[in-house]
């Protein structure tokens, strides 16, 4: 009797929560996964910032802003996204060109556009606008895309990618490229085109080598042989692998990482925060985080597969897969598998605008899922 009461009460709460999420057009499991990652991130930020509550507060505010944006975007009516897509893409492109031009005139790196009250990176918009544009172009066309469509898509992807890399911001450029490319993959691009693209990618990288900035070339060389310059460019990779490796199975304990706490690890609250987790919480802590990331990725992919509309499906699928690309590039770079490119660990790295963009993407994904039965 009593147990039944409790069970039914639990049942009722769950039902009520589900209904609330339904009303708010949110997906419960996805939200839970994201919240778990964000909490984990704030927990580790407290340690990596050297016990600085102010950093945690700032990080939480940023997360809150992202969450609000996610909630707002999740409420979007069907069709709105599709209608604004070309305008968003073109606006982003114009802003990118303006930023590049300012950078060229000012003879220096330029990523920001200062609007007086806020500074923002047009390349961040492109992380979402490019997959949106690709999905938009494919929504009316039969799939798999024919060669002409593929070439058109390639142009839509490569122009903003090139503009971003020229800023120079290799990390964001790669993410834009991946986001667009994944749309093409999910759209059913034939295997032979994929191989062709991969080959031309290698060719482009070879040619691009000559256009890279010295520091970018240095990063690649450093990745190939970090010990060649242990105090210079190789320092980041060496110190982060030492941090991870010395963490062992269970880590040195929360707040007890010598590499992180004694400043041997550079960028330890931002791009290299993964190494702090590896050092203080060990393989177990890292696996827990990777598990959460994989869960969020798979849940998002599942949601995408439930959608009936091509635009919604392709965009959602791309957002989901790009999220994992973030994780892989960041973890790979910090553990010495990939060269150092400025890609943050999603929802965990402190600062930057990527948290807002990522959560906006998930807001869009939830909106699309809520409207899955209708044409987006």
């Amino acid at each position, binding site marked *: 009797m009593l147990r039944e009461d409790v069970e039914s009460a639990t049942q009722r709460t769950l039902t009520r929560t589900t209904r609330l999420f339904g009303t708010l057009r949110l997906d419960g499991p996805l939200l839970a996964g994201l919240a778990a990652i964000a909490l984990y991130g704030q927990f580790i930020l407290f*340690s990596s910032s*050297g*016990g600085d509550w102010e950093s945690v507060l700032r990080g939480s505010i940023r997360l809150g802003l992202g969450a609000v944006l996610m909630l707002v975007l999740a409420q979007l009516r069907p069709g709105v996204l599709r209608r604004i897509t070309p305008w968003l893409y073109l606006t982003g492109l114009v802003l990118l060109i303006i930023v590049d031009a300012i950078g060229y005139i000012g003879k220096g790196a330029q990523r920001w556009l200062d609007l007086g009250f806020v500074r923002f990176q047009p390349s961040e918009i492109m992380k979402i606008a490019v997959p949106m544009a690709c999905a938009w172009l494919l929504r*009316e*066309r*039969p*799939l*798999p895309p*024919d060669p002409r469509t593929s070439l058109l898509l390639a142009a839509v992807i490569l122009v903003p990618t090139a503009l971003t890399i020229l800023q120079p911001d290799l990390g964001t450029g790669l993410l834009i490229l991946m986001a667009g490319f*994944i749309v093409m*993959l*999910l*759209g*059913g691009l034939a295997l032979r085109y994929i191989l062709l693209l991969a080959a031309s990618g290698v060719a482009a990288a070879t040619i691009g080598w000559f256009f890279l900035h010295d520091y970018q070339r240095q990063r690649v060389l450093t990745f190939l042989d970090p010990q060649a310059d242990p105090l210079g460019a190789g320092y980041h990779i060496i110190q982060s*692998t*030492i*941090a*991870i*490796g*010395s*963490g*062992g*199975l269970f880590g040195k304990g*929360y*707040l*007890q*990482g*010598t*590499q*992180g*706490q*004694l*400043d*041997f690890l550079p960028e330890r609250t931002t791009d290299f925060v993964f190494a702090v987790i*590896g*050092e203080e919480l*060990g*393989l177990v802590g*890292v*696996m827990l985080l*990777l598990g959460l990331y*994989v869960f969020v*990725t*798979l849940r998002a*992919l599942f949601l*995408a*597969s439930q959608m*009936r509309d*091509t635009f919604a*499906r*392709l965009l959602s*699928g791309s957002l*989901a*897969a790009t999220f*994992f690309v973030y994780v*892989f590039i960041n973890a*790979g770079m910090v*553990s*010495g*598998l990939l060269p150092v490119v400025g890609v943050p660990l999603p929802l965990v790295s402190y600062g930057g605008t990527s948290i807002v963009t990522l959560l906006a993407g998930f807001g869009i994904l939830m909106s699309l899922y809520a409207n899955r039965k209708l044409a987006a």
Partner: protein
Amino acid sequence: MSIRGRIKDFWIEQRLFEQRALATVFIVAALTLVLLGRLVWLQVLRHDEYTDLAQGNRVRIEPQPAPRGIIYDRNGAILAENKPAYQLELVPEEVPDLKATLQGLARIGLIDADDIDDLRRIVRSRRPFDSVPIRLFLNDEDMACFAVNRFDFPGVDIRTRLARSYPQGELAVHALGYVGSISESDLARIDREQYAGTSTIGKVGVEAAFEEQLRGRNGRREIMVNARGRSVEKAGGLEAQLAAIPGDPGTDLMLTLDFEVQRVAEDAVRDQRAAIVALDPNNGDIIALVSRPGFDPNMFARGLTRPEFRTLNENPDQPLFNRALRGTYPPGSTIKPVVALAGLTYGVVQPTEPHFCAGWFSLPGSSHRFRDWRPRGHGTIDLRTAIAQSCDTYFYDISNKIGVRRLHDFMAEFGLGKPTGIDIGGEKAGILPSPDWKKTVFKKKAEQVWFPGETVIFGIGQGYMTSTPLQLAHMTAVLATRGKNYRPRLVRAMRDPETQKVTVLAPRPLPKPEAGKPEDWERVIDGMLAVMQGGTASRAAAGAPYSIAGKTGTAQVFTVAQNARYNEAAIADRLRDHAWFVAFAPVEAPKIALAVIVENGRSGSGTAAPIARKVLDAYLLRKFPSPPAAGERAVAATAEATEE
């Protein structure tokens, strides 16, 4: 059908997407496995290696210099110790304005205004959190001055460290040696690890010879450092758990020197260029080792300025030169007792056999006259008088009869011509000439020939022969003890500073010279006794309550031409003869043997012997005249002037 004509088939597209989504899942899984593989490689398989690397990052080993051993004289008076030295240090990052701070310190006189630029350069070359010494050796006045103004100088503070100090100043500096800054040539031969955290090393004398014992062993302390090398106690939740390995303080040394006798000896020399070595003939213990002028070893310990070093180095009196060990002078008549003993041993002379001295000696078939120091000669004399009057012709004759080879070998047994083996470094061997020696030294055949005349002057310690004061003191000690022979030494015992256990070093005997019968030794010693009683140095022995055996000597600096007369007044002070005196006492049971040389002192009896008498009195009678203070001396001089 043409591609263009294709229409969208939603079911096919749905399936296509699902396939691709599934492929994406597999790719995600594969990439996750790659990441996991990498993490397992780093965190499990190579965990130990990375743990070592992380440990090496965070821990720095800081040397804790061991206190240097203390040096005592034979009665426990401190000759070298470690004293806290106060210095002004500055932590760059705590100083708001470096230039203004240094200018302020210069204004109150704590640093030299000329040094400001150099100091700024030094400070800038250091890490911002390292304390940089900007002024060494503050005296009480400086400290008071800083204490009053300290609030004007944030980031500047007084620090203490142990520095070598020689409380007796110049006293026995040539025996003791000194510590000085580690030079580049020192760095080439030392184990740098042992000197981490120290900036000084023993340079000469006991400080250098017993460097290893005095130095001790550095301790080590682990400190936790951050990436900028700053030492941290705590970082985040991290607390240092660090090891400290204590060092061993340096061994204390007990010298054979008697600093009171040493002081008497140095005071007796006054400002002459001179050397004295006094030792206990029964064990080789050096009682006093004087080389004047000297210098203050504290100057080296605290770091010599360039002008200070130039002044010392360019002083014509060569205060840095250790005359007692490195000064090689013709021994002159001081070796006559040994030559006499050689004559008796080889039977070329009888003690009572009369010898006529006409004031000159010639080799058979040669017209060359070897002159006596007394132009009219000594008349008819025996061995005793020959020693007492230091008759040259007597010894010309003996050495000619003994022959150069036998004389060389005999004298070598008294330690001449080779290092005595004293326990500090740097001593010279001098020259004990022989035909073989000539062959090794001269290149030209004509110059290698040993002339009979060279044998003749060998007998009075002239010609090629040179000796150090230490060698002559050692020779005298062997004579005094009738053949007991010990290696001279300065260090008598060592003490472990922790257990206070004293290890006394045994005297190190040398082979006894195979020379004469006991009565031959007594004949020679009787001659030396006669030197002090009516002989050349009788004035210096006047009133002594103990018996002294001695021998005067002069070493020619300036060679007098044949048929010319030595005109003392006409030659410059630096070309005058060196004055020698060797002695031991009491004759019956010798307790002390010594050699004194006064450079350009002219007369052994007039200059060197009185100095020796003061040393003998001090050691045997514990008679210590209070050293004349500078003021007192001036007063005495005025008094004399008024009397005249």
